[in-house]
């Protein structure tokens, strides 16, 4: 969460923001804590720059009361912000992940944080479950308010979306979004992209799961809705299977990739409609490697096709 003072401070330290460097309005930004620049894209509804690699928390941050694992997660969060990251995404569905995020944020105290949370509870109009859950999540994160709240997997969205839009109108929230994963409920998502005044949509997208390219990504671009790509590595399965193969030489020479993770992430975030990807990890080395995908050259359309074809053939 950025208050106005922090945001001004951050913006003052984003020297390359003015240098829109890539594909329709991308910028290179630097976090307040690092000189390393990462590629950022503007959130369509506001123009606010968002580094193209965020941090997911599904499974990796669900460590319960294990203090050692909580501290290790805090180090991941510190490395993420030190490397120029901004968006951290979690959900009440992710077990103890929210508390782990809160533990990490209390240590890192990142000025650049963009907090992305979700509401995920069965609810009927007026029962107050959604607001109660959001307040509980806020306490666990230890932030004054969230930047983005999303209706998780569209659960009772008819109840939750009006709540979130009200919060935004009242200045208690900056952005509103919806989520899905693994290709589920795309028709409903499409209808909502057409009809609802949302800022973000979160969906699964990677070189093997490309259904969103058909309708959702073009529609999001048309409607000026930011796209967060979840499950970039298919919960690790994709990287595990790719690890058996050698990274093609062109991935290093043309894109500067030092591993499969960077190639996959570059494929995802180079889609013009995708704002950022949110790989989850419990490793400091991996979070640094993931952020590395937000640096260096990005693939053009032809190279993106080459990446997808190559990975699909393995």
């Amino acid at each position, binding site marked *: 969460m950025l208050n106005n003072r922090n945001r001004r401070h951050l913006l003052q330290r984003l020297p390359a923001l003015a240098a829109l460097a890539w594909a329709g309005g991308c910028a290179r930004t630097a976090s307040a804590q690092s000189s390393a620049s990462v590629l950022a894209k503007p959130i369509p509804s506001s123009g606010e720059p968002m580094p193209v690699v965020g941090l997911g928390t599904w499974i990796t941050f*669900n460590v*319960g009361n294990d203090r050692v694992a909580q501290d290790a997660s805090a180090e991941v969060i510190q490395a993420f912000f030190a490397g120029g990251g901004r968006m951290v995404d979690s959900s009440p569905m*992710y*077990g*103890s992940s929210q508390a782990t995020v809160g533990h990490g944020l209390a240590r890192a105290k990142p000025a650049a944080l963009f907090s992305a949370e979700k509401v995920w509870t069965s609810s009927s109009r007026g029962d107050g479950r959604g607001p109660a859950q959001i307040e509980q999540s806020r306490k666990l994160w230890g932030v004054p308010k969230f930047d983005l709240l999303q209706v998780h997997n569209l659960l009772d969205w008819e109840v939750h979306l009006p709540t979130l839009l009200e919060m935004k109108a009242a200045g208690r929230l900056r952005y509103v979004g919806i989520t899905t994963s*693994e290709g589920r409920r795309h028709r409903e998502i499409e209808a909502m992209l057409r009809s609802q005044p949302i800022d973000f949509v979160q969906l699964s997208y990677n070189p093997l799961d490309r259904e969103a390219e058909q309708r959702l990504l073009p529609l999001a671009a048309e409607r000026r809705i930011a796209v967060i790509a979840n499950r970039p590595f298919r919960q690790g399965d994709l990287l595990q299977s790719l690890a058996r193969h050698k990274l093609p030489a062109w991935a290093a020479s043309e894109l500067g990739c030092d591993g499969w993770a960077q190639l996959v992430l570059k494929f995802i975030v180079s889609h013009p409609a995708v704002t950022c990807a949110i790989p989850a990890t419990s490793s400091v080395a991996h979070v640094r490697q993931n952020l590395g995908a937000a640096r260096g050259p990005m693939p053009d359309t032809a190279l993106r096709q080459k990446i997808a074809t190559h990975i699909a053939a393995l």
Partner: protein
Amino acid sequence: MSEWWTYRPSDFLMFSARSYYRLFELYNAALWPTQPVVIALGVLLLAALAWAGGRQPAPVWPQRVGCALLAAAWLWIGIAYHAQRFASINAAASGYAAAWTLQAVVLLALALGTRGSDEPGRARMMRPDAPARWTGLGLGAYAVGLHPFLGLWVGRSIGQAEVAGLAPDPTALATLGLLLLLPRACDALQRWLRRVAWSIALAWCALSGLTLAGLGAPDTWVLPALGTVALGAAWRARG
């Protein structure tokens, strides 16, 4: 959710293998040195059950003591493991805690209600057949003596050992073993209680198998396989 068929077991897992086994590591550290005491208790119980099985008429006190001990174990695991620890990474664990508490009550009822017979002919009729006895003792021996070291074979540390009486999986197996060793039930309530006990223990074997499959654990097959062996032995003994 209208697309249930699109989900895999792993989609319902919200924790990693690392967090799961780390839970056992912390649990074991908190309980040490209870583990050797519980294992020794298990060995004594197995010895008593083996001794009783060779006598005619066979005494049933080892089975009753076994049921009582396992009732305590199921209750302990329901509270100390599922509710207090597993629930911190798995939302479903509070439900597991309830099922484990119910099983504790059922096993306690079996401990109180299990009867033998002083009449030699009737005692012979009530005695479980030899394959069921050997399967029961084998399952118990595996649960107490081998399962804690299973993790070592697949690359886990001894600190993450799952001990019968303290951890769910070997306790469920030991329970199936003991159920095979009980004298044949002669009243409807006993038969009903045993069906409940079998159902809960077998359900845990299936659930544990699904959990480990979702985590990609190499020993995924152990509980479902041994649960099937127990069920087969019980099925055979019915005839």
